């Protein structure tokens, strides 16, 4: 029932599974895999040959006489006659009834017998006789069809839908000997197995929680965050992770536990924008549009001018206002009603990570997790572009700021250092970078 989802999810992880020429150390495995694939195809060939042989045999041999329809009928009617006799003997059928039934059956019998006479007359007519000794033309065609079309079509279809080079992967075998190159799922499995034995290992929960989130296993994620909080204590990251997880696990509804978590986050970190934003959305879900607007306005007022999330809040706000004006019944007043667009792919083609106008709307529809993922994608795209076109000062500034906003301080410092080295000698640029570094507190 999750098939679609699975494919979509794991499709992204799908790696070229067979042999890369460069991966010399995997060569042994490759040879083994090739042998296995070969074996599989041999198996397919054998199976196909057996099938074709089974189908073609009667066509190649001489035809044998099948009972004609009328002799089969005769058998049935004779048997029915017997049954009537038996019932009459038992006294279940009265004499008159039995006689009537018998008369009827005899009529059927005679009709069937006539049929046989007709049939044999027909069969004596050479034009109709088909049971000659040499294989007739239709039989030949059928043999060719079986021998050629069945294997060709089968292999064609199989190549388009099958996965011949994928080995089977039984659970027990996998547990017994872990192979090199573990997939993310296997790694998760190992951590899970350890946690099963040592459920109070807070560090383990902490490690696995974001991985679950990435795998869209939100309920597991929520549990992992909750356990991390239980064993390691509260931190804003853990609480916000937990809140995010249960919101996602509940179809985007800000459920009571999430509210509690965001409130707690605000206690620890007064003014924390993420918590404020989602609590405002919670109000909206409670139909308290006005309250939601007021909260978001407050959030905007406190927001630093260059805060990356400003546009999100502004767009949300304007939509809320519109919905308030339009009244509850206006379809347009439903901020979250539009179908959730998929996150844009191919982020590297964007001009920078600053979301476009549609981008904002898109991002607004996303959960924080998705937003973050979306942002990272954008940032990575920007970084990749700057690798090629390194003279874009504005780009570098945006990149540093973005890293900082995302909490990737080391990357921010790295990007800053790189930018400095590129613009060495350009005074204006260096000055601009210096002031940015001061503003953000990035590696001076």
């Amino acid at each position, binding site marked *: *029932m*999750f*098939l679609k989802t*699975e*494919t979509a999810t*794991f499709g992204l*992880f799908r*790696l070229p599974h067979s042999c890369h020429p460069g991966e010399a150390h995997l060569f042994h495995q490759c040879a083994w895999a090739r042998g*296995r694939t070969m074996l*599989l195809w041999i198996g397919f060939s054998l*199976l*196909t040959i057996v099938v074709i042989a*089974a*189908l073609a045999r*009667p*066509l190649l041999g001489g*035809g044998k006489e*099948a*009972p004609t*329809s009328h*002799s*089969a009928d005769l058998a*049935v009617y*004779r*048997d029915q*006659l*017997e*049954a009537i*006799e*038996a019932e009459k003997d*038992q006294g279940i*059928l009265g004499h008159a009834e039995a006689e*009537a039934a018998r008369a*009827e059956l005899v009529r059927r*019998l005679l009709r*069937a017998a006539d049929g046989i006479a007709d049939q044999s007359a027909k069969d004596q007519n050479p034009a*109709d006789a*088909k*049971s000659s000794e040499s294989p*007739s033309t*239709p*039989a030949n065609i*059928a043999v060719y*069809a*079986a021998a050629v079309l*069945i294997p060709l*079509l*089968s292999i064609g279809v*199989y190549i388009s*839908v*099958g996965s011949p080079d994928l*080995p*089977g*992967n*039984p*659970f*027990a075998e996998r547990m017994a000997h872990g192979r090199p190159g573990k997939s993310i*799922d*296997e790694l998760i*499995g190992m951590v899970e197995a350890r946690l099963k034995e040592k459920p109070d290992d807070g560090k383990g929960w902490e490690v696995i929680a974001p991985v679950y989130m990435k795998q869209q296993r939100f309920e597991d994620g929520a549990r992992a965050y909750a356990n991390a909080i239980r064993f390691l204590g509260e931190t804003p990251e853990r609480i916000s992770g937990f809140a995010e997880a249960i919101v996602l696990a509940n179809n985007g509804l800000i459920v009571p536990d999430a509210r509690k978590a965001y409130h707690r986050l605000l206690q620890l970190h007064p003014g924390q924008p993420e918590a404020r934003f989602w609590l405002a959305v919670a109000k909206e879900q409670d139909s308290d549009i006005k309250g939601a607007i007021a909260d978001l306005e407050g959030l905007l007022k406190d927001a630093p001018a260059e805060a990356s999330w400003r546009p999100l809040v502004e767009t949300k706000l304007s939509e809320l206002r519109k919905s308030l004006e339009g009244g509850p019944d206006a379809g347009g007043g439903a901020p979250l009603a539009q179908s959730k667009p998929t996150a844009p792919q191919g982020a590297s083609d964007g001009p920078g990570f600053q979301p476009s106008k549609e981008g904002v709307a898109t991002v607004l529809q996303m959960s924080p997790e998705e937003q973050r993922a979306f942002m990272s994608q954008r940032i990575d795209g920007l970084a990749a572009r700057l690798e090629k076109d390194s003279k874009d000062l504005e780009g570098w500034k945006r990149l540093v700021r973005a890293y900082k906003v995302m909490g990737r301080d080391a990357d921010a410092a790295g990007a800053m250092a790189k930018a400095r080295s590129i613009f060495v000698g350009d005074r204006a640029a260096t000055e601009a970078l210096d002031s940015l570094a001061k503003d953000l507190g990035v590696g001076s």
Partner: protein
Amino acid sequence: MIIEFGHFALILAVMVSAFQLVVPAYGAHKRDARLMEVGDRAAVTQFFLILIAFVALVHAYVVSDFSVANVVANSHSTKPLIYRISGVWGNHEGSMLLWVLIVALFGALVALFGSNLPATLKAHVLSVQAAIGLAFGLFILFTSNPFERLDPAPFDGRGLNPILQDPALAFHPPFLYAGYVGFSMAFSFAIAALIEGRTDAAWARWVRPWTLAAWMCLTIGIAMGSWWAYYELGWGGWWFWDPVENASFMPWLAGTALLHSALVMEKREALKVWTILLAILTFSLSLMGAFLVRSGVLTSVHAFAVDPQRGTVILAIMLVFIGGALALFAARAGELRQGGLFAPVSREGGLVLNNILLTVSCATVLVGTLYPLALEAMTGDKISVGAPFFNMTFVPLMIPLLVALPFGPFLAWKRGDLYGVAQRLTFAAVVALIVLVASAAWVQRGPWLAPFAIALGVFVMMGSVWEIGYRVKAGVVPWPEAMRRLRNLPRSVVGTMLAHFGVGLAVVGIAATSAYRIETIVAMRQGDHVETAGYVLTFKDASKARGPNYTEDLVTLEVTRGGKLVTTLTPSKRLYDAPPMPTTEAGILASWRGDLYTVVGDPQKGGGYAFRIYFNPLVRFIWIGALIMFIGGGISLSDRRLRVGAPVRSRRRAGAVA
């Protein structure tokens, strides 16, 4: 690797079914025995290929091969073995594979055991059967492929919906599908008959065992589903008129009618056109059931999670088969020869009445199932059609059917003597009357109709017993002679009587449990007790327990009756690990007089739990009745006469006619 082998086998099977569709039909057209014989080979080959595919998938489930997407989505490494296996058909893709496996199985059985059939008829039957297999095979390969792989493999599966982890449900779908798909045989025979332009008594005899086998499987399949819903869902009911239940019930009603009309056709060569039409309609209803369950048109406990694209494909398959069959029927029905004559009061007349009532009641179920869909499509209003609708429409139609039922087998063919039959049924009627008075006097509550319904059930049961008595002349001839006669009774007669007896028993159970069920909702703390239906239930203890893949809150209830300890019941609330989902496990005390059914509800403020306690009188009769119907069908199927016609058979009296 095994899984890929299975995948390839499935593809080969689809190709073979295409071959089987074309070659035998062409052979029949050309009267070429060799080409027709290919049909037998192809049918058997196709079955073994699908069996390989199916076994490969089962293997993947058993070893938890999570490189198979279907296993990931529906299994989990911690699941007990039996549910790993039943998980194969607990989901859309796997159950479709089971579906085509059964289609192929029936085809192969005809090929292997149909040596008594005329070659052209058999060739046509196998062709039509192959067409069904081909359509669903392609459907599986291209929209619902259970052999889809994942790379890299996820570490563990998502688990099977825990309410499906149940022994009754493990075997309910295979029976149900065997029933649905078994009617495809009747369909194939009907199409073959229309193509050949010949329908006669012999045809009816050939088609009857297949119909009977399908009907048996469907009967027991529906009963298992109902039993599962009864004890697993924790709602205390056994039938909910849920659209998906109806989807299986409609083919059953039509199939029951078909079984009876084929009898008329076999014995008297009457009702030919009707029987052919009914064969087509029965399988059409099976297809419609598949469509409703899998298209997402309906949502229900039993429905699969679905995808609209699949629904469209199934709809197309359904329309092609039903439309094609009905078009062929319209073109050919006029050519069928008229059959034997009979008076309105006769065995045939009784069976016609049976057919009218069964098909019309089937139509009311159809209306009740489709009306909400139609209304929503036209006006956008959403409605639910529940038990009240069916109680008002279906139930009244069943009453004349049950009243008439005991008369039927006593009536003579062609022209019956109603008065004579009524005399023979006096004893049954008297017993029923006594039951009526006794039950009315004894319970003194519930709807006034209930004692009548119970008496009606008893009438049907007694009528069946009495017919056997009449046939063996019990009481008329000496005892050993009667026993000898009993042994000599044709098995089909015994089977019929058993099946009718089962109907009566089920009716008694249905009437009693619907009218006299006692429902108590109560909050209890530890030490509290409650009294219901003569039992005293005491809340002894609440504890937590850990099962193989769930944790549960277990409540212990001590049940006493007249001061004596009867048993302790342990209803529980479970929380499964994967997927994490709460379920309710009912604690049931089963006895002949009825089931004490306890469900634990929410924890209460200040300790204790809410409880729902039902007493369902005679509820077991329903499933025992169905089981007896199943057994009756089996005995009837084992009758030598249904297998008859093999030309090799030695016959005592062959010379008498030929």
